[in-house]
């Protein structure tokens, strides 16, 4: 999840043609990719789709570090190897569908700043849901800082050790407890400041 801030940085600082494209067009493009994934049932078609997405990924000069994010669905697709009885065509089909989907969404997120994605979604989805999505996204950055600090403190004090699994588990659980309590405190402050600014269940984006 540390990649989150890096993705955000890439989306804001990038200068490629995809970065300059309107967020609405990119979301429509993503929906078309999803429809193709659902409709396509041949390996050749899926190879072509994945090839196009890979080409876009490298044309936009997105770093390899982000590319590894797109490989994550492979871990879960492995389960389908056991379901299918090791049928290679089926496994490839599932892998390609998973890879195309993840490459598409990572491409969208790495070329579009998240307030722009949420502003576009706000036109089609209930504002309550989009507000919850926005607040969660914002909260991730707040809690990420707390989590990193707690992790450092744990490492420096020898709180995570292979030879003391129970103590390590206890310390990790306390760290999460600390994270939750810090989160609750921060949410109370966030609510007060939002109310002071006239919040009424909807976040208004710049330009609205």
């Amino acid at each position, binding site marked *: 999840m540390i990649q989150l801030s890096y993705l955000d940085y890439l989306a804001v600082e990038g200068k490629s043609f995809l970065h300059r494209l309107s967020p609405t067009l990119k979301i429509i493009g993503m929906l078309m990719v*999803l429809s193709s994934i659902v409709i396509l049932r041949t390996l050749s078609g899926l190879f072509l789709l994945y090839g196009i997405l890979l080409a876009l990924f490298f044309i936009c000069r997105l770093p390899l570090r982000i590319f590894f994010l797109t490989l994550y669905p492979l871990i879960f697709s492995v389960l389908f190897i*056991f379901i299918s009885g090791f049928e290679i065509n*089926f496994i490839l089909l599932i892998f390609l569908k998973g890879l195309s989907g993840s490459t598409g*969404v990572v491409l969208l997120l790495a070329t579009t700043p998240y307030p722009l994605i949420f502003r576009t979604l706000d036109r089609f989805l209930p504002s*309550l849901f989009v507000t919850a999505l926005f607040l969660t996204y914002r909260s991730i950055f707040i809690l990420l800082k707390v989590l990193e600090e707690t992790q450092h403190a744990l490492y420096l004090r020898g709180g995570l050790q292979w030879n003391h699994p129970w103590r390590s588990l206890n310390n990790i659980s306390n760290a999460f*407890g600390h994270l939750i309590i810090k*989160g609750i405190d921060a949410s109370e402050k966030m609510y007060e400041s939002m109310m002071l600014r006239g919040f009424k269940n909807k976040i208004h984006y710049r330009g609205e």
Partner: protein
Amino acid sequence: MEERMSHIHLPDGVLPVWLWASGFMIAILTGFILFRFIKKEELTRRLPLLGMMAAAMVLGASVEIVPIAYHVNLTVISGILLGPSLIFLATFVVNVILALFGHGGITVIGLNTLTLSIEGIFGYLFFRLFRKIFKKLTPATFLATLLALCLSTFSMIGVVGLGVSHYEELIHQEKEKGIFEFNLLKEKHDQHGKERGEVNMRRFVAIVLPLGFLGWLLEGVVTTLIARYIHRLRPDLLVLERKLL
């Protein structure tokens, strides 16, 4: 794969359209029903908390417990703190954000929300029930987490099981088309007879359940320790009389 067996990150295009479309419809309907019980002011007041708990769930999925390579889930503790309606929206949001990072498909957000919210909602209900029975925090939290995760894992197996005929269809249509590079492998499979082209849910269940059981135990221990920590610092958050949405 060792992580969160109750919440499988299915890729797009694997499940049949009717299944994931129904998942979306049921999730929207459930959300609509649950939110009918919430007062608007109360919802506004608790939205930042919802955001924070959803963020904690997303971050929990990214931290590995090193000696045992496990990722925590935090859905049950979030369910206990947020209540049934808000945990439903929180799981929806968590699934959208995870899908945006390629951790699972966009089309299966509805189904993933339903399976993950089972954990949060039942975790909350079991916690209240066991807290009344045992009068102690530790056994109530542990049992609530264990049972909620067990329910959620079985619902996930049920979801995957509903798509069996679709997987068979995918296997057979690809077989008929045939691609030169893979013909050699196909012939080898032919020798196994029954193995070829059959969807084997038993094998899937045999892998998922033992891994899932370990996950339930670990999550149960971690959630209990978190609840004890919260109880030490903010006992007001775990009081049963507290009215939740």
